């Protein structure tokens, strides 16, 4: 019987009431009396030298408050990068400056050149059109491989190269990997592109800067997944405002998917301008602006090779990847193709030797950074595609080839520096075979063939490193931030609980799932627990939400703080019942003395803490409020097996997804309904990447897919009803909840299953197609079939 409360209950999401009835408080809903509006004049060329910017006529236009250009930001910090990667020679990456407004050059279509602040947005736009620009267009750097050739135009002249870093991992293994390849019985090679994506959260970015002249305090309201991180980066590195004079609020945020992790120029601008003008300044991105100013995702070009022995055991793996950084280093961009990608190349397999080379390249395109999965989808896609290709080349069953090479003993130290704590890859595969009805596939294929369609079945496994991350480890790897999480648990005098978490909810349902944990621990109903997040003035310093970390890290901090509360409350209860603290038990919202019928209610203990008339004041302080900071000792390692079945119309190349099954091992699960939903959404985005989404530039650096007219987002009719199963649970061994994180799994695990299925379908029709780059669009399938 499913639970109806606490851990394991599929509670309906309490936040949905306001989201679905139009009563949410999104950033764009925030309006401050007397606010001005900013319009950013953005570059329409990919690369150009700014000869002059004449704002005189524009500044005289009606309603204009002030026009800012790069010159206004000279001497002020640029946007910082939060992760320094060290290259294979031990040298730090190239880290060119990233000005708030362009200085000297524009480096991508959308690069902000000037910011017009006016009484209304229309007035700001009118004035922006009156700015006279003299920009000398320069050759655009678009293709990554050409960008690192001698003689290429340079995105940043002063660093003398477009190569940000050339990373080798693990460099010491390189020789042994080469040797293993020379001895291999079989080598499978695959070259592919992991397509560039635009995150497209439903709510575009918004920033509202405010300044209080009386107190000297600045406030930024922003669409962020991590307001404390923005406060630190913007305050310390860009604007020079100490934390106690700067508040950052991220209220209801309509989706993030990674692209709202980063610190953006518009946030810094609005905060800066509000102080300069002593007036609130608001910016709301249009969807068109989002396409050319939100950090993009993925965009890797990879060659991967898998070596096998005569018994089909994986003996070595090597990869060479070009990773697009875009024109500037976005906040966590350098970490994505390295520590979030190279460390996952072992996948679910006991390949003993692995070498990963990544060349990060500057181009005249929008900066690229983490997007749902961030490095792990890129790792999974190439690995699971090359295994499928190897199986075909060797004439073996792709599932059996995987099973033969599965890691089966835990903990398992991979050759790429991480240690998996738990997992059971055969269990998730067994479950997949069952729920996806492998046994019935041949009959379904015959039915499809009778309709003139080709049917294919694709399988893949995935492993991800989530619960990001142990601070001491990531510090060694170049992170310039800690990745712990915080929580304050405040118990009010009448027993209600408020949890102020550093995690941020922008669709994840924390307001529902976090109270389930508190309810389980204390035994009070969930409606007695309130979650506060998204405001640096209310929550302790936290690191926010990304990398499937909220429950694993933020939830653990909450558990630690709640444990402190319970320990203290037991002392109070012991005092009230004149019993020994060691005999006190907490169950169903009441404290009792073991072996007696003595009991005192949760609320009575809480009241005693705040009205300490009968209270052990000599031993403990009044009040019931505790804070904990939790730093994980390892990543968590969710894993799973996915299966996709497609039909291909051989006349048009159109692919339709007939079924999709997913088995995930997320360890313990707090709210199964929310977890199912996270997986559904992730698979939807994975199917989007696999079949539809394609952020494309032409050779001049013009964005070809700059709107929904050309950028294909998945719609409801593009995705099937999913079969998901989360019954395989190997709990995480190192966090108190035994949870692993589920936010990114769907997006990581689904693209290879889709492409593997398409390739399988084409082979069933006699088409010897080995690979089609994503998105596997009808025209690409047709071209491959007729190539």
């Amino acid at each position, binding site marked *: 019987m499913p639970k109806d409360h606490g851990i394991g209950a599929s509670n309906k999401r309490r936040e949905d009431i306001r989201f679905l009835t139009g009563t949410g408080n999104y950033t764009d809903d925030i309006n401050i009396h007397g606010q001005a509006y900013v319009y950013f004049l953005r570059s329409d060329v990919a690369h150009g030298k700014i000869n002059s910017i004449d704002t005189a006529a524009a500044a005289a236009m009606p309603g204009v408050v002030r026009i800012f250009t790069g010159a206004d930001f000279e001497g002020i910090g640029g946007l910082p990068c939060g992760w320094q990667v060290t290259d294979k020679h031990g040298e730090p990456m190239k880290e060119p400056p990233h000005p708030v407004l362009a200085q000297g050059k524009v480096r991508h279509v959308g690069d902000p050149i000037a910011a017009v602040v006016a009484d209304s947005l229309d007035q700001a*736009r009118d004035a922006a*059109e009156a700015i006279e620009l003299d920009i000398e267009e320069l050759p655009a750097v678009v293709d990554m491989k050409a960008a690192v050739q001698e003689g290429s135009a340079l995105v940043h002249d002063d660093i003398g190269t477009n190569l940000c870093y050339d990373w080798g991992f693990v460099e010491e293994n390189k020789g042994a990997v080469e040797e293993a390849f020379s001895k291999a019985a079989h080598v499978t090679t695959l070259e592919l592109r992991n397509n560039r994506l635009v995150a497209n959260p439903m709510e575009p970015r918004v920033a509202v800067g405010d300044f209080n002249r009386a107190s000297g305090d600045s406030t930024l309201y922003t669409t962020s997944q991590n307001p404390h991180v923005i406060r630190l980066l913007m305050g310390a590195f860009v604007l020079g405002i100490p934390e106690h004079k700067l508040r950052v609020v991220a209220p209801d945020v309509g989706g993030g998917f990674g692209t709202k992790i980063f610190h953006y120029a518009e946030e810094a601008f609005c905060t800066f301008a509000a102080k300069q003008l002593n007036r609130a300044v608001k910016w709301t991105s249009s969807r*068109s602006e989002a396409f050319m100013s939100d950090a993009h995702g993925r965009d890797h070009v990879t060659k991967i090779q898998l070596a096998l022995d005569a018994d089909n055991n994986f003996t070595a793996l090597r990869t060479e990847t070009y990773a697009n950084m875009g024109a500037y280093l976005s906040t966590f961009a350098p970490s994505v193709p390295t520590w979030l990608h190279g460390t996952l190349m072992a996948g679910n397999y006991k390949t003993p030797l692995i070498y990963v080379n990544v060349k990060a390249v500057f181009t005249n395109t929008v900066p690229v950074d983490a997007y749902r999965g961030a490095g792990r989808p890129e790792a999974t896609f190439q690995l699971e595609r090359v295994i499928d290709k190897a199986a075909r080349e060797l004439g073996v069953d792709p599932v059996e080839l995987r099973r033969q090479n599965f890691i089966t003993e835990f903990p398992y130290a991979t050759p790429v520096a991480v240690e998996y704590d738990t997992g059971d890859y055969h269990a998730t595969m067994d479950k997949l075979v069952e729920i996806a009805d492998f046994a019935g596939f041949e009959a379904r294929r015959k039915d499809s063939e009778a309709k003139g369609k080709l049917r294919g079945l694709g399988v893949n496994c995935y492993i991800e490193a989530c619960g990001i991350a142990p601070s001491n480890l990531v510090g060694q790897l170049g992170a310039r931030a800690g990745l712990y999480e915080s929580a304050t648990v405040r118990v009010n005098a009448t027993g209600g609980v408020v949890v102020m978490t550093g995690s941020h909810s922008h669709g994840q349902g924390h307001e529902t799932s976090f109270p389930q944990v508190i309810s389980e621990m204390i035994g009070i109903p969930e409606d007695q627990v309130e979650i506060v997040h998204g405001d640096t003035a209310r929550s302790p310093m936290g690191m926010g939400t990304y990398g499937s970390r909220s429950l694993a890290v933020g939830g653990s901090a909450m558990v630690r703080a709640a444990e402190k509360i319970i320990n203290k409350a037991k002392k109070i209860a012991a005092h009230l019942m004149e019993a020994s603290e060691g005999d006190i038990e907490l169950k169903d919202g009441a404290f009792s003395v073991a072996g007696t019928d003595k009991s005192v209610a949760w609320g009575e203990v809480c009241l005693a803490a705040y009205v300490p008339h009968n209270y052990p004041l000599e031993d403990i302080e009044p009040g019931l409020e505790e804070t904990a900071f939790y730093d994980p000792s390892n990543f968590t390692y969710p894993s799973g097996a996915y299966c996709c079945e497609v039909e291909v119309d051989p*006349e*048009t*190349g*159109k692919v339709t997804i007939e079924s999709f099954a997913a088995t995930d091992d997320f360890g313990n699960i707090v709210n199964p309904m929310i977890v199912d939903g996270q997986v559904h959404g992730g698979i939807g985005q994975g199917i989007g990447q696999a*079949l*539809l989404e*394609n952020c*494309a530039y032409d050779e001049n650096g013009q964005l*070809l*897919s700059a709107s*929904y*007219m*050309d*950028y*294909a*987002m998945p719609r409801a009719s593009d995705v099937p009803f999913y079969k998901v199963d989360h019954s395989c649970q190997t709990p995480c061994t190192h966090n108190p909840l035994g949870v692993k994180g589920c936010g990114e799994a769907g997006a990581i695990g689904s693209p290879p299953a889709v492409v593997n299925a398409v390739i399988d379908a084409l082979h069933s029709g006699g088409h010897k197609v080995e690979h089609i780059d994503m*998105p596997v*669009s*009808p*025209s690409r399938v*047709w*071209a491959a079939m007729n190539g």
Partner: protein
Amino acid sequence: MYAFDFEKPTSVADAVVALKDEDALALGGGQTLIPTLKQRLASPSKLVSLMGIAEMQGVSADGGTLTIGGGTKHAVVAAEAASAYPALAALAGGIGDPAVRNRGTIGGSLANNDPAACYPSAALASGATIVTDKREIAADDYFQGMFTTALDEGEIVTAVKFPIPEAANYQKFEQPASRFALVGVFVAKYADGVRVAVTGASEEGVFRWTEAEEALSGNFSPDAVAGLAASADGMITDLHGSGAYRAHLIGVLTKRAVAAAG
């Protein structure tokens, strides 16, 4: 968008007068013009809405002709033309999404003549007559290339007269992002022959595939076009498909349209 004046006349005659102002533009359902204005890519002095003109509304069948008012929305055509001209009703019911179909109009679509719009293929394949405030224009003379028609400045499409075919079908292969026609083929069979019109594919906009028409006029069956291949010359190549792919789709969709038309 930039500021403009707005008028909503109740008769064609008043609309014609209102459109005489310099830089005045007619506004139908606004499915292209409004986004264009929002992007500041047009700056009319005045918008003249045609949506208040009762004489431009409605669907009526008389003898062998289906007449649709120029201001009639796609959703109305989808519902009200279903018995008289089911292929045309199905086309209207497949344009955009419900929001688009309850704003966009047939007159607006034909006046705009987007090279990937659905309606131009139906009008051309049906040998329709475009009725304006001052004349009647045969479809064969009306479509003059991408976003180009025989309309004069300020001329209003008041109605479209479709000869009702013996059999017809429209096959649309959607561009994955916009869901406009990557290629759309409308096949219509009349007593005096078959007409095949193709949208989405050509750099010149909607066109008739005369080789297929000839083959089908002698033998209205999918086999008749099985061996035909449309030329890739002049076909659009873009992010979503090459000219060769579009040319190939023309053949596939024509065959399917004939099969579906029965």
